[in-house]
């Protein structure tokens, strides 16, 4: 493919640190060294996608910079992302631009929330996407480490999202550097997340979750899977969850990343994932009395209290989302709490015919 690039050219010294220094001076970077987005590097990425360089993925908030495929490729080239993995970056951005993901709110909020990329499909290994031990950090798969970072750079450089400036995030979170991991579908007792969301098992799919952070859960005492799920449900329904701030429990998804050993136990108790979600939902609530009196009235005013004085985390079981990943050491799960005013979105990865 001989695409014509139109983005502005910049001369930089070939010294390995020169681009790093330039990126810091220009505000392009995230504080970590970058690779030079040369034409060769950008063109190699463009060759992997069916989109033309001038194809517009969308306007990225908060500044509504226009994300052309070329600009996305320039940002992606700086992370060392492979051509194989580049289409995952595009899919993630496409998913984030679905209005119900609420990029407008999520890119500007005081919350720590950021795009967490959950990947399904047969291309996970080839793209270097981690889904086993250390999948949320430490496994160092090239795809996991570069796809999420590419999305983050696109938000920064195309969308203009800068903490303390256009983003009012109070704390941020490590995922703002990029968080991308896969589902260990082969060890899951249930259909993959992507299949449950209506995608084909043969497709590579990126699901974008507006997650507030990684919330660790641990257990060594429970032999009964129902007891363990009960405690998971109670743990994710913590009183200061964003989900209890609003009167809209129907908005927002809470991901529960389950290690394969626990998932196997849960799958035996609940062969249908919907039944597992129902059980989690049945117990993901707190008694109204947990909250101080003033909060109780607010929760009542917002219609969050049921006839049994329960305050449920979310409106429906489908909003509690099991996702099987992680190592075989068992003992742990990780919840990815929701911002609330955001619904997870999925997009299939599209590749140029004939490319890997």
């Amino acid at each position, binding site marked *: 493919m001989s695409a014509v*690039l139109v*983005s*502005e*050219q*910049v*001369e*930089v*010294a*070939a*010294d390995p640190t020169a*681009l790093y220094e330039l990126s810091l001076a220009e505000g*392009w970077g995230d504080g970590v060294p970058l690779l*030079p*987005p*040369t*034409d060769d590097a*950008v063109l190699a990425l463009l060759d992997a996608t069916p989109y033309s360089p001038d194809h517009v993925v969308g306007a*990225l908030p*908060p500044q*509504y*910079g*226009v*994300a052309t495929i*070329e600009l996305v490729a*320039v*940002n992606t080239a*700086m992370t060392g992302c492979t051509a194989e993995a580049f289409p995952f970056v595009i899919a993630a951005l496409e998913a984030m631009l679905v*209005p*119900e993901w*609420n990029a*407008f*709110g*999520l890119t*500007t*909020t*005081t*919350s720590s929330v950021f795009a967490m990329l959950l990947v399904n499909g047969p291309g996970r290994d080839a793209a270097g996407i981690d889904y086993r031990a250390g999948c949320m950090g430490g496994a160092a798969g090239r795809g996991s480490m570069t796809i999420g970072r590419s999305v983050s750079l696109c938000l920064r*450089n*195309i969308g*203009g999202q800068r903490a303390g400036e*256009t*983003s*009012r*995030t109070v704390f941020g979170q490590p995922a703002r550097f990029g968080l991308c991991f896969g589902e260990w579908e082969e060890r899951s007792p249930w259909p993959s997340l992507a299949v449950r969301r209506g995608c084909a098992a043969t497709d590579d799919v990126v699901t974008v979750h507006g997650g507030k952070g990684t919330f660790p859960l641990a257990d060594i005492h429970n032999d009964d899977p129902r007891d363990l799920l009960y405690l998971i449900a109670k743990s994710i329904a913590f009183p*200061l969850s964003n989900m209890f*701030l*609003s*009167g*809209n429990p*129907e*908005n927002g998804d809470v991901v529960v990343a389950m290690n394969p050993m626990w998932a196997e136990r849960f799958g035996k108790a609940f062969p249908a994932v919907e039944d597992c979600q129902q059980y989690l939902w049945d117990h993901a609530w707190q008694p109204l009395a947990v909250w101080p*009196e*003033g*909060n109780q*009235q*607010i929760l009542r005013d*917002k219609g969050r209290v049921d006839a049994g004085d329960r305050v449920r985390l979310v409106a429906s079981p489908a909003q509690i989302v099991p996702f099987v990943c992680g190592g075989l050491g068992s003992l742990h799960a990780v919840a990815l709490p929701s911002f609330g*005013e*955001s*619904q997870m979105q999925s997009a299939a990865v599209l590749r140029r015919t004939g490319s890997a």
Partner: protein
Amino acid sequence: MTVTDTRATLTIRRPTAPRPEPVRAPTFKLGTPLAGRRIGLRTDGAWRSWVLIAGEWDERLRDAGAETLQVETNAQIGDGGRTDRRNIDAWSDEIDGGIVGLGTCGSCTSFSVQDAVALESHSKPSVVVVTSEFETHARNMASFLGHGDLEVLVLPYPLEARPDDELRAIAAEYWPKALELLGAAERPDRAAARTVRPSERDQQGGATG
């Protein structure tokens, strides 16, 4: 041994999107006294402080002979969000000008500005109310949305956790500025005449998160 030529350069591509030229959409002023006009107040269920201040201003508007129309927003997305945006659109049609609040967090400032811009897009005078911590963000968002001249009324920060009598005092202090930004040709003595009387109203309890 390899020797690097330190004079060598690379040609790379700039990763940033061109910034659009600032758009200055027209702004509007009431240009008349409040009496006989219908003024809108947009509240947000999230902020007790703003509900109280908007309530104070609602009374002052009616004291001045205006009719008031409040609309409350509660959601950013989903059915609730779509309903809120439809209500803002209908509300914008029905009023002569409006005051939109409150921006005192990141996303609520963004959505307050968006709703104020929606009102201004109906060729109506529009004022967005934010707290000082979020003023720059509000002005940035107004600019990004193509309404860089949107009137922004800046209240003290923080408002939350203040007692009601302080909030009423703030409502009284900033009322003349709200009128000025709205462009109401109100007599200054009338605008400032009303005093704060905390004993008039029931105390409201409970701070929000």
